[in-house]
């Protein structure tokens, strides 16, 4: 049995938080833990928006009770999405709801300064992308090497697109219409783990890859 702290997890999506309840937890456990978690960060959750609740162990009735409880007690908005993209809750993480269905362009060499690759679909580079080079894909971008140039994934407005690289060190990252630049003060050369960038609540978030799947 997992400790109580792991019973509840919050996942951010652009439509609001998703509450994920560990499938070993019962209703009582879940409710108690939920209160504890929200209370510990009341300022953060105040007026926030929730979109869904995942709990394989709880009945629909129990879920609705939880939702009603949250709405009344914490003044939290709850918008139930019509369709749930995430099927497998235990494997849910922020970038699993990506589109794998596009065609993919593979490039097997270093992309140097001045080079410009645009593709309707995903781009996979087996090599480095150097500063001054630019990759634009309507889908996802994966670099099996160092990404030091500019990458734009989901260029036609796909917020679910991601950019992943063995060494993610771009001058600028764009996903859909969101733009991010590397922090200047950070020593990026120290970063040796593969990373993945995706859009989370309107911002580009970078995580080490893989996260706990």
């Amino acid at each position, binding site marked *: 049995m997992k400790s109580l702290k792991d019973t509840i997890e919050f996942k951010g999506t652009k439509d609001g938080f998703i509450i994920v309840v560990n499938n070993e937890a019962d209703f009582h456990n879940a409710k108690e833990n939920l209160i504890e978690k929200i209370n510990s960060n009341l300022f953060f959750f105040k007026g926030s928006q929730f979109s869904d609740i995942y709990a394989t162990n709880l009945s629909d009735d129990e879920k609705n009770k939880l939702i009603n409880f949250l709405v009344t007690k914490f003044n939290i908005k709850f918008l139930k999405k019509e369709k749930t993209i995430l099927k497998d809750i235990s494997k849910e993480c922020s970038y699993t709801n990506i589109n794998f269905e596009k065609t993919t362009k593979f490039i097997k060499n*270093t*992309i*140097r*300064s*001045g*080079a410009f690759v645009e593709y309707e679909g995903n781009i996979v580079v087996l090599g*480095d992308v*150097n*500063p*001054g080079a630019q990759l634009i894909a309507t889908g996802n971008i994966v670099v099996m090497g*160092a990404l*030091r140039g500019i990458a734009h994934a989901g260029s036609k407005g796909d917020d679910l697109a991601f950019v992943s690289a063995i060494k993610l060190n771009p001058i600028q990252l764009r996903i859909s219409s969101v733009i991010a630049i590397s922090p200047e003060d950070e020593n990026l050369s120290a970063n040796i783990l593969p990373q993945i960038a995706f859009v989370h609540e309107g911002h580009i978030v970078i995580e080490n890859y893989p996260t706990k799947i």
Partner: protein
Amino acid sequence: MSKVIVITSGKGGVGKTTSTANLGTALSLEGKRTIVIDADIGLRNLDVVMGLENRIVYDLVDIVEERCKYKQAMVKDKRFENLYLIPAAQTRDKDSVSPKQMKKLCDTLREEFDFILIDCPAGIENGFKNAIAGADEAIVVTTPEVSAVRDADRIIGLLEASEIHNPKLIINRLKIDMVQRGDMMNIDDILDILAIDLIGVVPDDENIVISTNRGEPAVTNQKSLAGQAYRNIAKRIQGEEIPFIDLNLNEGFVSKLKKLIGLK
């Protein structure tokens, strides 16, 4: 088997002309029949650096426009038996020569020379395209500066697109003390980005300025560290194995520098 080597960089002022003059001189000192061609039409410098400015009668544009035989435009160096120069025209521009004409000239010169070095102009326009047209190989010169490395990267991409593969890299004007303090890009940083073979590292050296102004290439000065570095590069161009020294050895600055350029 003669080789046509273009010396290029993208960015200006990193030492293409100085490198061409020194490598040409070093190769001729080794007994190789060498000709250097200044492809920087309109901004010719190579003749000045080599101290041959006052001997120019005809130039590269005169050859391609058939106002002279190519042998008439070849300026023989006053000090070195095997060294010749074809100067650029100063009064014309880059469009005066076509890539096809350059290739034809290079192929003609192959019959007489072991090494044909082409001093490429800065930039990626017609001048660059002319300079690389007849080349078998390329040497890319960069300095340990982000902008120069960026341009070198672009140039390597363009060379590959023009079917000139495996260019070699010269890192010019490296200041070892600054690298040690972490104030300058080090060799590994540069190689990490450019990912091509290093053929030489030339330390920053005041002798280069002196010799350039006098029109006497630094390779003739046995005391010049940069001159020694160029002599080593010339040997590597001929296929000799001269090892590079690990910079991370814990020792004094001078001995490190000497090892770096191969004096030890």
